[in-house]
């Protein structure tokens, strides 16, 4: 897979993870390029969640190498990931319903004026700018309480929260799982814009329709191994479904690695 001249922002090389006797991931390789939306698909238990949690530092890989901008790094704690500029938007979004959009976006990273007073003006302004830059137009006011937002709006807030910290890699876990048709479309457009802004995006999804709508590349996990890594415009749903359900193990993953 010699895709681009630049080294990928994030590169996984032969990463494995086991929980006791269970091999959750076996020698997986994955590249995330700047400006590229990569979809990570696979059946339940294929290792998608394990992979993103390991990248996020929640439970580090047991073996293999993680490279960031070509440099080997160790991510053993969520803070390591955040420091590198890797942000994860989990399925439950982790928003505080009783706080407004600005308060949620800056939660834990508030800006201050003198004497520890919160700098509400600066935070509100930046939050609005981020929303505008991401073309999130459905949101009325950034001072709305999150409890009053629709599912799509909440997802947009969670994504905006993830990208406003100079992040370079954004991982989205099933961002459209709980959304209706129109809102799914909005969120997918937002995901596409993240890629267009030069971020490396990893989209974890069950929904192949969504994946084909937005992804540049599709990586398929099966039983903890990567069984396919396909360009979205050079493959079909049929081929991806086959890889998910019956992708050839071990050998298939092995042959894809060498070029890089």
């Amino acid at each position, binding site marked *: 897979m010699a895709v681009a001249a630049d080294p990928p922002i994030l590169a996984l090389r032969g990463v494995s993870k086991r929980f006791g006797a269970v091999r959750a991931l076996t020698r997986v390789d994955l590249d995330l390029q700047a400006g590229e939306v990569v979809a990570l698909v696979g059946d339940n238990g294929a290792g998608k969640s394990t992979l993103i949690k390991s990248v996020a530092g929640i439970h580090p890989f047991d073996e293999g190498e993680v490279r960031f901008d070509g440099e080997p790094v160790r991510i053993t704690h969520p803070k390591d990931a955040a420091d590198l500029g890797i942000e994860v938007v989990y399925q439950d979004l982790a928003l505080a319903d009783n*706080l407004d959009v600005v308060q949620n976006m800056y939660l834990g990273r508030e800006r201050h004026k003198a004497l520890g007073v919160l700098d*509400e003006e600066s935070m509100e302004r930046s939050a609005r700018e981020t929303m505008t830059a991401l073309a999130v137009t459905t949101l009325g006011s*950034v001072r709305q309480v999150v409890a009053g937002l629709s599912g799509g709006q909440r997802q947009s807030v969670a994504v905006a929260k993830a990208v406003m910290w100079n992040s370079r890699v954004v991982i989205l876990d099933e961002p459209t799982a709980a959304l209706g*048709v129109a809102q799914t479309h909005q969120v997918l457009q937002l995901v596409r814009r993240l890629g267009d802004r030069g971020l490396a995006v990893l989209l974890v999804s069950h929904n192949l329709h969504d994946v084909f709508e937005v992804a540049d590349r599709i990586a398929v996990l099966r039983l903890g191994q990567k069984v396919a890594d396909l360009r979205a415009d050079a493959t079909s749903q049929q081929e991806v479904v086959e890889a998910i359900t019956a992708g050839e193990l071990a050998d298939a993953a092995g042959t894809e690695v060498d070029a890089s």
Partner: protein
Amino acid sequence: MTETEPRTPPQAAPGTGGVSPAAGAATLSGHLKGYLRRLASGDLGRLPIVVGLLLIGVIFTSLNNAFISPVNFTNLIVQMSPLVVIAAGVVFVLLIAEVDLSVGYVSGVAAVVVARLLTENGWPVVTAVALVVLTGLSIGWLQGVLVAKVGLPSLVVTLAGLVGWNGLVLVLIAGRGTVTISSPFVVGITNAYLSATVAYGVMAAFVAVYAVVQLQRRAARTRADLPVVPMTVIVTRTAGVAALGFGAVFYASLGRGFPLIGVVLLVVIAAFTFVLERTSFGRHVLAIGGNREAARRAGINVDRIRIICFMISATMASLGGLVFASRLRSVDTNAGGGQIELNAIAAVVIGGTSLFGGHGKISSALFGALVIQGVDNGMGLLGLSSGAKFLVTGFVLLVAVLVDSVARRGRTRSGLA
């Protein structure tokens, strides 16, 4: 999954947040309309408590004129002062969706400690008060660690505290019956009254700070090119606060004058409101009450914040005990009794702070205590028994929770919270 576009169109409408960016709020009438719309959607704000206080005033005055007299007005402020101090700390614990049943007897322990140190051991006031604060901090730390680090339910930890600290009160007071307090400082806390000039001066300072804070915020928002509250609203609010403040001072000065403790209460409420609404700590408290997991993932040290909340609660309880001792000028085996903890929690809930965490204001301690003490005081004037007082207080608490839960349903329906 199957539901398409469930709530988008109504949500797009402006004016759901405190400050809406779009048109509508730029004028006084727009602001009023926004307020009415929020009322209609179940965001009642202060309205129920104001209506409740008016009802209490009207009913008890019609039954006995003495209720509204200047002397009784100052009595009411002094009587409710320990409750307000204790309840102000309880707000923090309720905001993180926990409960603190120990505050009553923690205040009792503090009262006994200060009385014995001053009267028997002749300690200087400063060190005695410092030790009271330290007692509160330690008790709060202990209970907080048991809840946050060990993972025990706060209901049980503080119930054990309720029983245990009651025991400590009895042990400390053992065989003494009553310990009187003669320290002029401690007695003065609730028995000193300001001269009219000083009282007006202090109130003027409060109003000025209130106005300046709003104007500064408005100026900062203008500089940042953000939507602002119309000037007429700021003027109206400030005028309202000034009328209430100066009115209270004027009315009190017809009797004994404005009590010093009244000023202390205002300072406590203002300081804690600042902490809750203008600092990261307060923001994190609210976040933990709203979604603890989200707070944890945002990198907030959740355990630390929760422990601090219990420390604030117990420390304010200790200081409340000091105020209680000052009011009674003595401490006996009943110190901390009389369901102080239940009254404090009830006050905070009546004042509009949710029992389920994340929603509330410090001032709910003041307003709720005013309701509870108003009922108590009014029924005392009518010569009614404690039994009748409890029945009515219980009823008021129930009504307050009922109003809140109906309003919450309204908010949920209109997607506000």
